[in-house]
């Protein structure tokens, strides 16, 4: 199975681990990530304004490229996943945005949201299946107690993203189980880390991450996993006493599949 792969800005830079281990895992699991040539940054934040068209076009270009390849579009970063799914929903269901975006784009055929956007975790759950994944694990992470940190952009708004139940998600917990570890469920796994306020007000992420770590640690987590580079940054900068190590989910996946030191595509 070939996917049009949209890595996003950070995966080429500060979050290279998220990308690298995903590529290695994909080889082990038998699917191919074909990077979209000349992809452009999604902007990190979905442009909420109903009259914001230009800032949605980088997503439309990537979505249309995948459509032309006849492939589904796969992402890893929570923010890219969020922006691409929401813009795709606009192109499919919001006539005004769709028409105006297509006027700008002047494509051979108008783009109407035909592409399916999937998060890497959704591929594991819905295409490969966690039972199958479990069979391919060679280094089970037995005994590790792992807290899934979803953050906000992966889940909300649930009606558009359809990633999982936004208030009680299971996908990362099932992923952790498939790797042979024990998921730790704690209530702040879907609460925001403080996001971009980190740039000018460190106070906000400091409070948010302390709350998240206190909760995860209280329920006995040895480590957290995330799919979002900004969450990773804010969690890593935390000075909470309860702090535990944070990994990209792909790193643990590669480790469990025995390809952490392997060769990527």
């Amino acid at each position, binding site marked *: 199975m070939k996917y049009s792969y949209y890595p*996003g*800005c*950070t995966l080429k*830079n*500060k*979050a290279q681990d998220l990308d690298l281990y995903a590529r290695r895992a994909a080889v082990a699991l038998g699917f191919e990530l074909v990077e979209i040539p000349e992809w452009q*940054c999604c*902007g*990190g*934040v979905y*442009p*909420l*304004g*109903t*009259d*914001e068209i230009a*800032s949605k076009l980088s997503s439309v270009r990537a979505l249309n490229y995948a459509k032309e390849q006849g492939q589904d579009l796969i992402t890893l*970063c929570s*923010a890219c996943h969020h922006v691409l799914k929401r813009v795709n929903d606009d192109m499919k269901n919001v006539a005004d945005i769709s028409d105006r975006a297509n006027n700008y784009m002047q494509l051979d055929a108008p783009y109407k949201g035909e592409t399916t956007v999937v998060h890497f975790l959704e591929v594991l759950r819905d295409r490969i299946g966690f039972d199958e994944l479990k069979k391919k694990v060679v280094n089970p992470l037995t005994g590790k107690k792992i807290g899934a940190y979803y953050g*906000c*952009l992966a889940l*909300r*708004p*649930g009606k558009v993203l359809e990633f999982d139940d*936004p*208030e009680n998600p299971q996908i990362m917990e099932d992923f952790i189980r498939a790797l042979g570890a024990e998921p730790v469920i704690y209530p702040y796994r879907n*609460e*925001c880390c*403080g*996001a*971009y*306020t*980190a*740039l*000018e*007000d460190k106070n*906000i992420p400091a409070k*948010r991450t302390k709350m998240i770590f206190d909760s995860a640690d209280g329920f006995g987590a040895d480590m957290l996993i995330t799919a*979002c*580079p*900004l969450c*990773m*940054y804010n969690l*890593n*900068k935390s000075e909470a006493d309860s702090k535990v190590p944070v990994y990209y989910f792909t790193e643990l996946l590669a480790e469990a599949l025995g390809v952490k030191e392997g060769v990527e595509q």
Partner: protein
Amino acid sequence: MSLTMAEKQAEQIRQISGSDPYKCMKCGKCSASCPSFNEMDIKPHQFVSYVVNDNIEALAESKSLWKCLGCFACVERCPRDVQPGRVVDAARQLVERQRGGDHLHAEDIPALLDDDVPQQLLVSAFRRYRR
């Protein structure tokens, strides 16, 4: 009938946000859910009623515009589908679209950086804090 400046701006916020503040039943679930509640001078539920009452000047001066995390907890949980987060965002855009409305300036950036800052943080902050 000619509209006052505030009425025009309130209408603009309704249009940009695509949200209908009249659907609000004043339950406060947005403010109950908001992770930035304590950082805000005008609270999420107040944003909605300020737009209903054309009280835009206060919104434009509010520091809440820069404290919303864009986490969509209020959008997800609003029982009336008012989507307060979109209203806050539209008020922010109204300010930024005016001359000199940017909250963040490119020359400020170097001082704010550290070695680990991910690109995602910069692009997100740019999109939120600048036109």
